[in-house]
């Protein structure tokens, strides 16, 4: 019986060395290249995906620990790029080079899954693991707050 993993709603067998981090399985085996390699040590957040809805650094997560888990990558965050965070990112015009942004969005989505109305301090605390060298932080803060407001409207 081979082990399997669900990525963006589709089940795949795990057929790579078991110590391979999830990042490389996603990028090179499944060719979901939206998830990025930045540091390989869980220090920069560029590789952030959701494991069962929680933001996780895929570059330090061995694939063997992922059997039976549900993974969501940036490609699977929404059907039509209409997640409140994606809409806010577009509205605010967050990205510069854009390389870290999938990780930023997935990390923020993880935050909003657990706390739908974060304070600005909570946003900063949750996002401090994600580095952006272009310096889009001011816009990230604004976009996350905007998405949280949007979610609050959807709920009420």
């Amino acid at each position: 019986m081979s082990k399997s993993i669900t990525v963006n709603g589709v089940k795949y067998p795990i057929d790579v060395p078991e110590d391979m981090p999830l990042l490389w399985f996603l990028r090179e085996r499944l060719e979901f290249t939206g998830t990025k390699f930045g540091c390989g040590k869980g220090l920069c957040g560029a590789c952030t995906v959701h494991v069962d809805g929680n933001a996780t650094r895929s570059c330090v997560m061995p694939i063997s620990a992922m059997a039976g888990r549900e993974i969501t990558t940036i490609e699977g965050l929404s059907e039509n790029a209409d997640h409140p965070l994606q809409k806010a990112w577009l509205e605010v015009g967050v990205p510069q080079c854009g390389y870290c942004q999938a990780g930023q969005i997935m990390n923020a989505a993880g935050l909003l899954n657990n706390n739908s109305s974060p304070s600005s301090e909570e946003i900063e605390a949750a996002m401090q693991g994600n580095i952006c060298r272009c310096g889009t932080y001011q816009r990230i803060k604004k976009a996350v707050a905007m998405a949280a407001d949007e979610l609050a409207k959807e709920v009420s």
Partner: protein
Amino acid sequence: MRPEIESLIKEERNKHTASAASNENKTDITALTRRSFLKVSALATGGMCLGVTLPAAKSHGKTAAADFSPNAFIYLESNGNLMVKSGRCEMGQGISTALPSVVVDEMEANWDYVRVEQAEGDIDKYGSQATGGSASIRTQYIPMRKAGAAAKEMLIAAAAKVWPADPKDCYAENHFVIHKPTGKKLGYGELASIAATMPVPEEPTLKSSKDFKYIGSYLPRHDVGMVIQGKRTYGVDTIVPGMQYAAIVHCPVLDGKLKSLDKSEAMKVEGVTAVVEVDRMKVPFGSLGGVAVVANNSWSAQQGVDKLKIEWDRGANGSYDTDSYMQMLVDNVTQPAEKMAERGNVEGAFNKAAKTLSAVYTQGHLVHSPMEPNASVVHVQDDRCDVWASTQSPDDIQSVLSQFLGIDKKNVHVNVMIAGGGFGRKFKCDYVQEAAAISKAVGTPIKLIWTREEDTRTGYYHSNSAQRVEASLDEDGNVTGWLHRIAFPSINTLFTPGIERAPANAVADLESHPFGISNYRSESGKAPAHTRIGWYRAVYAIFYGFSHGVFADELAEQAGVDTVTMLNRIYDNNENKAQAEQVARSKAVLELAAKKSGFGKPLPKGEGLGIAVHYSFQTYVAMAVHVRMKGDDFEVVRVDSAVDCGQVLNKDGATAQQEGAVAMGISLSKYCEIKFKDGAVVTSNFHDYPVMRITDMPEVHVHFVESDASPTGLGEPGMAPFAPALSNALYQASGKRHRSLPIKA
């Protein structure tokens, strides 16, 4: 590889790449010649393609082929879709939105129908694509406007022919040509094929700046939609059939050598197929030399590298130690050094002075650390080489690979991918040359991805530097003399190894500084390079901005006035008429930053508001930085950045560049320093080479001077005034003067 997973992956990938694939240009474009100013041709699928060739330099007054620099390609399809190729490299600075928007504005086209594509590396078609020095907008603005204007005139001519009507009675608006007397309209798509047969205007009429629709507006980047879905593909994301993956470890010391290699354990790693020695290539952007491991995935390749047993012969640079080297730099600026430039009589001014003041400023090495580490895919075949790379300079890739492979430049095909950050690092194509070396050795396409550790340890470093500034003040507190002595290993050592001190071209920015002190001398102290030195976003302006900005604050204190008063006094005393414009524009941004920040207002204890101004890359930026002490640490609360870059092309992108400059300014002011010991870098990743994070980000307010002067670039100039303004703020907040970067609070 089991068939079921292959088809599953393929199906999923097709879903996700469908929109990207439809964006590919499928039109067959007739090759354009370089003879005329603008060249038009019909698209095979109907429509028009306009290639623009404009004189690169007007000064020669000739029209020889060498004077022509093709700058833009505009593809208008019969369905109205408009594709503009962006010849300059995109790395997040927004050039692939800014320049195409200029074309579209002049063309009176609708941005909603526009698609931007990154041009392949082709110096004959696009002119130099080497993207650096904040030069793209400065050099391409007028050619792009002319291209758009020419296309518009041809579309009007086409409509006039169809109706028929007098072209003078027709005008273009929002993707249509309109016949004024009757109100008849024809869409750009309908007109494209006919426009392609119209004569190309040699001197198209440009719009008045008051009629600009996109230029000067807040235009979203053309690719944000792709980015938020993870569909924007960078060099590191390239996938080609038959590709293998590689990782590399370099000799940690410049010009060291491989002494011994045991690859047996590496070869045992599952997936590893080969170990390849990559030789040092002694050209400016060639490999440092190292050992690569090839595998069927990147993880195995990286594991393989970790299992290599290597001994290096560290060679002549094996004793490089940045702590003792910095002491040497400081020593070399505290004693007379080689004269670089002089005007007036510095000693005379110093002898007559009421007061003199001197200070020494230092900064350590920096590494660029773009979020996307160096990566490229290269496939070397007998007489050709295909490259997919995040790069700032396809020109250099072609030139280095043609030398390395012994093939013609034309046979090095460079697909320019958006870079996940560049900051000067991706100007240098050592990582591409290495991928070529590996591909040549194993015979398959190779994707080489550097680890963050290699990116940190074996980069091209921003010079570490020491500067000593000495100035004299007269009794009225006017600066009368200025002696500026510098010592730093220079970028020139990449091109001329063995240069012992920074040469005149690296010191020229001091001489042309708009302070323009009448009695002035610059001197360059000994500073041989023991590592690779390279351009880092804003280059010399980082440390020259720091010394000028902090020293102005120190002079103000000596003269008993505030910093803005002191700076204005220095500018007003500049007697060099040729610098009148620089003086006026520097003063204007200074005043704007002071006003917007409330400079001079009383602040609570433990807070400070510092200000600095710097002119670099032909752009003027003043920054006011507000800090608050938090025990021994500090936080930057707010930054007001005042900018004069002439006509702003895209306010959104221009604002983003200032926000980014503040962020990078905080990183280098507070955290970043590369240290060497025994010839090698001692740090490796973001845990021991930290950069600023979201918790450090202040409010940034950007203020543009309204101007229709020729536009200049913004990728770098915002970097210069931040660190000195911060240092000045900290002095006010804590009473402690910081003259070294990074600042240890």
